[in-house]
């Protein structure tokens, strides 16, 4: 994507019918580290890859929790992108849930809340004095209609998903989820979490895994939203490791549905070129290290 004369304002259309500011906001999501959401009949799980902080790992405001945010007893979300924007959205969802519970003494149906969120986010893509929220969210919930995973993007698109992964290097996670999609509905809680961990290990690629921690959260039938602590994370991680090495080859990723879409997007931007511009998997994180604020 390159600069052009139609990208200075959210309210400017390009001649091809694109809103560039909204698309740039989607890029912010790809800067954040990966996160995966998947659901079975009774449980919905969120798995996030958090960057380990070298200092103060045991502090109360543990930076490890910044990716997954509880919203209510029946709902939580994990984010990829600008943490500050995510906090605003999370606060809005929490206050909506609280207000609903005060009036009706019951869980806010997840689909309705997420639809209203989409309507609220759309306003930011249509006003000259606002910008889209630079955060993509995976919202996991359980209500009388069963389990839900919703993907909400800065474009204010809301998708109801069986499983989804967003963030940087998430294509290999999506490939893994696609391959095992049929087994999720009837999975046990343990199998579901292990599938999620395997999916997100794909997103690590060949990177040094000590730089990242895998965080897991679950919600479901008779199970209020809960983020696992260190010990529980470790238990599931060990079980998942016995399921084998999930890292897929770039070629396999390219053949998957998501990989094809990424390749077509790249060709639209850079033109058909034979010189090594494959799916946009690699962001050069070392060179971004000095820049603030750091998306999670």
């Amino acid at each position: 994507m390159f600069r052009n004369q139609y990208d200075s304002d959210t309210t400017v259309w390009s001649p091809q019918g694109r809103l560039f500011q909204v698309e740039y906001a989607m890029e912010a999501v790809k800067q954040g580290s990966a996160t995966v959401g998947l659901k079975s009949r009774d449980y919905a799980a969120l798995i996030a890859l958090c960057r380990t902080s070298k200092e103060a790992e045991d502090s109360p405001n543990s930076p490890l929790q910044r990716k997954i945010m509880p919203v209510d007893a029946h709902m939580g979300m994990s984010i990829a992108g600008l943490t500050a924007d995510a906090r605003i959205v999370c606060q809005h969802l929490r206050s909506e849930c609280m207000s609903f519970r005060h009036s009706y003494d019951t869980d806010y149906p997840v689909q309705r809340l997420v639809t209203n969120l989409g309507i609220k986010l759309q306003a930011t893509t249509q006003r000259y004095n606002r910008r889209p929220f630079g955060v993509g969210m995976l919202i996991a919930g359980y209500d009388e209609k069963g389990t839900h995973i919703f993907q909400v993007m800065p474009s204010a698109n809301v998708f109801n998903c069986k499983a989804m992964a967003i963030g940087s290097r998430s294509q290999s996670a999506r490939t893994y989820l696609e391959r095992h999609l049929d087994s999720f509905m009837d999975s046990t809680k343990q199998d579901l979490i292990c599938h999620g961990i395997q999916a997100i290990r794909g997103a690590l690629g060949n990177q040094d895994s000590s730089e990242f921690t895998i965080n897991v959260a679950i919600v479901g039938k008779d199970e209020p939203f809960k983020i696992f602590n260190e010990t529980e994370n470790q238990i599931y991680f060990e079980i998942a490791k016995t399921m084998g090495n999930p890292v897929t080859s770039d070629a396999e990723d390219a053949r998957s549905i998501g990989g094809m879409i990424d390749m077509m997007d790249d060709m639209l931007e850079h033109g058909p070129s034979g010189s090594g511009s494959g799916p946009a998997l690699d962001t050069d994180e070392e060179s971004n290290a000095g820049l603030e604020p750091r998306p999670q």
Partner: protein
Amino acid sequence: MWSSNIYRFRQPLWPGDAYDFNADPLQHTHKLPLEYTTPGPFGTKHSTAAITTGSSVIGIRFDKGVMMAADTLVSYGSLARYQNMERIFMINNNILFGGCGDFADIQSIIRGIEQKIVEDQCNGDDIEMKPKALGQWMTRVLYDRRTQMNPLLVDVVLGGLDVQGKPYLANVDLRGRSHDDFVIATGFARHLTIPFIRSAKPKDRDFNMDEAHEMIKRSMQILYYRDTRNNSQYTLGVCSPKNCGIEGPYQVAENWSYAAGIKGY
């Protein structure tokens, strides 16, 4: 004619508008002055008396659902004015609503609830409101009105099938007090019928549907004999897994034959 307004007075917008002498002539809002809106001994008294009233409502929870009955009379003081009014309402497939007290307030509440049902349907996701949720909402509304010193003068019985088909029956009154129980009665029925229903309840199980029906029939009979603001006709609402609806109107089985033997009265 109206264009030469040299005194810059606000023009009347509708017939009778010119007689609002207390209004600020340069203002276009139609707010009443504070003397007319502040509650208290020297200000306005929001009506502290109900005008047209419905009498008691009885609700009984049985093993599979709830049953609710109210007579069909709405009185205007001591005048038996509207003799064919249904005071039990079916809200949706899960909820029955019975209203006692000022009947205009009941109708206003029902209109508000019907709005909520329409909003539910507009979502198109097949999620129907449950009785507990509606009960909580009613409590909030009635409590808020009482706090504003402008109560809805009603006593409401709400019942139906909650999550997983569990029967639920509750009462909310004009102060915003609410409780749920296996028998709920408002008005005179609270004094005349609750004692005998409570003593008839088996200790180890719920009522079944026939027992509940018998209790209701006996209650309506007692109320017709003893409460002077009742008539002999009543409607019955039933909410069970098989169906939810209003039946009736039924007639109370009245027996005045003993009157012939009364002398010296």
